[in-house]
């Protein structure tokens, strides 16, 4: 096992070299490429310009031929290597010179600083999205596989394909346009991760009086209990009718919230609200229905309590952050969810029809045990393999999401770096995303061996 890991780690080195070489070649081969001239902006006197060029050349070695530049960069980032004196000539070989990602051309700051500042933000987005993606997709995928050919399976399959085909930028633009701009519903902030005033707020939310907290709790519990009870104990027809009515009312209220609301809009929203919630009431997928209806109940309770509360309320840093994160996380999750749910369904289907599942049923195991103890565990294997490719795709997805919601994460940094032809920054981002991806491949392979005893790497 250890020799396998060591071999994989060593194999990463040529791959990483290849990645940076490809990116460097693209930059060097491009017309214009990277030169000191391209870094100097605006009008300057010839002498000053010359001085700037010399400065950049000395700092980054831009006047050297491309292969030398690449080797220099490699030498800079490797912890062992040659050291240079002021005139850029080699003056020794050091084992402890330390690695240096260099300075960003555009920002004039060390690349490491910039990346350290941005990575947590992108990680925050992804860490929030991943559990949502996995939980939902496992729930829907397992359900679709066990209900193969029935209405839930067909409708969820089409819905998954549709969701998967919605471009992230369309979803982002529409969400911002309708739910964050002041023309329609200004429910969410348009940009950034927190409001300026939220930085001065305490971390947790504060209420003006104890009475308000009690009120809020009371309505939340009432909302939760009533809708969960409706979901669990009411007959399907009653459940569906009540939910459809609720959806219609909510839709109308939403339409009346818009300044320039038209009759068409209220009808459209009312009908679609009642159809959506009616479907939720109709479905026989109890776990999903109850949890979604419970969430809806809590939400309605909060809404009601907010209209009744009198004293002032400070939302605090945490709530403000969450409020800012809802739309971006929504944009990041839906695509991955659709993809994984389809994958989960296929994997479950294959295993449900396998011989061992039949054997388990034949020896008298309950269907629930067959499903969760045998089939489900084996169906997780493809999910593990895919999780390795999900991380890079989430990183790429956050490029678009961060651009739309102007969140200062790695994705936005990448776009800025590329637009500014910032050589050091581009190479470092490439290197880091390459390392992340390769490590996630390795971890996925190791998880695979843990999950499936038949796989061994010795």
């Amino acid at each position, binding site marked *: 096992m250890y020799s396998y890991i060591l071999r994989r780690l060593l194999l990463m080195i040529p*791959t990483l070299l*290849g990645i940076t070489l490809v990116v460097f070649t693209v930059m060097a081969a491009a017309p214009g490429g990277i030169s000191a001239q391209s870094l100097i902006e605006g009008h300057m006197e010839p002498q000053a310009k010359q001085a700037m060029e010399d400065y950049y050349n000395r700092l980054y070695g831009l006047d050297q031929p491309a292969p030398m530049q690449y080797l220099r960069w490699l030498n800079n980032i490797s912890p062992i290597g040659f050291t240079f004196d002021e005139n850029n000539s080699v003056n020794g070989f050091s084992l402890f010179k330390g690695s240096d990602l260099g300075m960003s051309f555009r920002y004039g700051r060390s690349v490491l600083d910039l990346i350290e500042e941005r990575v947590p933000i992108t990680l925050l987005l992804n860490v929030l999205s991943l559990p949502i993606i996995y939980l939902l997709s496992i729930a829907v995928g397992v359900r679709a596989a066990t209900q193969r050919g029935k209405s839930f399976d067909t409708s969820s399959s089409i819905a998954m394909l549709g969701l998967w085909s919605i*471009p992230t930028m*369309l979803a982002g*633009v529409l969400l911002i346009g309708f739910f964050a701009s002041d023309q329609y519903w200004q429910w969410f902030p348009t940009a950034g991760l927190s409001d300026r005033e939220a930085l001065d707020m305490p971390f947790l939310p504060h209420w003006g009086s104890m009475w308000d907290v009690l009120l809020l709790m009371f309505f939340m519990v009432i909302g939760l209990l009533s809708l969960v009870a409706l979901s669990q104990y009411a007959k399907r027809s009653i459940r569906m009718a009540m939910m459809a009515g609720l959806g219609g009312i909510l839709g109308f209220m939403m339409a009346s919230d818009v300044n320039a609301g038209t009759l068409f809009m209220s009808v459209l929203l009312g009908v679609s609200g009642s159809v959506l919630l009616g479907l939720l009431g109709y479905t026989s997928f109890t776990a999903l229905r109850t949890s979604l209806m419970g969430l809806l109940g809590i939400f309605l309770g909060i809404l009601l309590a907010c209209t009744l509360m009198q004293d002032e309320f400070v939302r605090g840093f945490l709530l403000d952050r969450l409020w800012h994160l809802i739309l971006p996380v929504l944009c990041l999750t839906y695509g991955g969810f659709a993809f994984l749910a389809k994958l989960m369904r296929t994997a479950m*289907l294959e295993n449900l029809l396998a011989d061992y599942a039949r054997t388990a049923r034949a020896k008298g195991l309950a269907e629930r045990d067959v499903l969760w103890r045998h089939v489900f565990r084996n169906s997780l294997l493809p999910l593990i393999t895919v999780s390795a490719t999900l991380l890079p795709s989430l*990183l790429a997805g956050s490029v678009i999401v961060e651009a739309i919601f102007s969140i200062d994460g790695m994705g936005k940094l990448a776009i800025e770096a590329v*637009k500014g032809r910032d050589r050091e920054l581009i190479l470092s981002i490439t290197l880091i*995303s390459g390392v992340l991806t390769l490590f996630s491949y390795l971890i996925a392979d190791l998880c695979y061996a843990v999950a499936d005893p038949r796989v061994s790497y010795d």
Partner: protein
Amino acid sequence: MTDSGLPEKGSGYVAQILRDTFSRWGARLGLLWIGVLIFCAVFAPLLANSHPLLLSQNGAWQSPMLQFMTPNDVIILALLLITIILLLIPWALRRKVMAGLGLLFVVATLSVSFISPPQLTIYEQYRDNQNTGQYDWVVHAPIPYSPKDYLRDDGDTGLESPLGSEERTHWLGTETDGADVLSRMIHASRIALAIGFIATGIAMFIGLILGGLMGYFSGWVDMLGMRLVEVFEAVPTLFLLLIFVAFFSPNLYVMMVIIGITGWSGYARYIRAEFLRLRQQEFVQAAIACDLPLKSILFRHMLPNGIAPILVAASFGVASAILAEATLSFLGLGLVDDPSWGQMLNQAVQASTFNWWMAVFPGGAIFLTVFAYTLIGESLRDAIDPHISKNK
């Protein structure tokens, strides 16, 4: 080279799979939408054009639409004609492809060298002349606005919501600079189709050659090739694309090549796996024993038997190539002047207010196109995988 084309069995297999695929409603719906797109792309100058199709001035007929036809318009029209004619002729596939390529080349050289539309276009002249009654009669295109006609003759142009003004009809509204959204969308369907097919074609070509060699030779060729595949898979494709596009000036053709170059690794992986499996089989061993040339073994014997999973990957690949172009244009790194759906979506963000028609229609077109290719891909996969389809 004989005229028999691909081996009878191979083409039969592919034909059977295609028949099976397009008997499903999902694939049919997808095909329908793509058919609509092809129609729009080919007949774009007839559908949406500020130049009248036909007019009569002082008793003399003229057609400004024909005068202002670009070589591209002619080539695309010819491409459709050639395809239809060749589909009707009962030739072998290979011969059809060769004849099609040859004819296309001839048409392209002829039209590039002989067709030169006037450099200066004044869209307003037709409307002015018509208003002052200089024409006897005019036949306009169904949408009488060119994609780059910013309606400068109308003083208060700018943003109009769909059917928002009484004077002129803009079915899907106008952009902030006054250009008609529907007209731009019709002309942008060309870019979407071309990017999808050509970028995927390039990616598939590279992937087939490299993957085929890797799978056939295995050993150190495989080892080296897989490192190369890993190199291209370890960086998020979007980031690689961004670097390429930012450093090379983005015109349509560069863009296609770039999307192709960054997208080949998946195909190489698939075809390698297929060829590793096929290599052991008797018919390949027999072909090797007969001392057939490598090209023949790889592409006439192994490829037809391993092509099926590639077709699935290709139809998803077309979708992702269209998405890639839209994403790049959306991020402001794509085509500058030509209409493209992604660039139109970007304009919806750049505008100071949110104008839903500028986001919903181009975005919806991207969505429908990606959805269509995905549906076709899913149906193909079901048709190819007997295990799953048997269980249905």
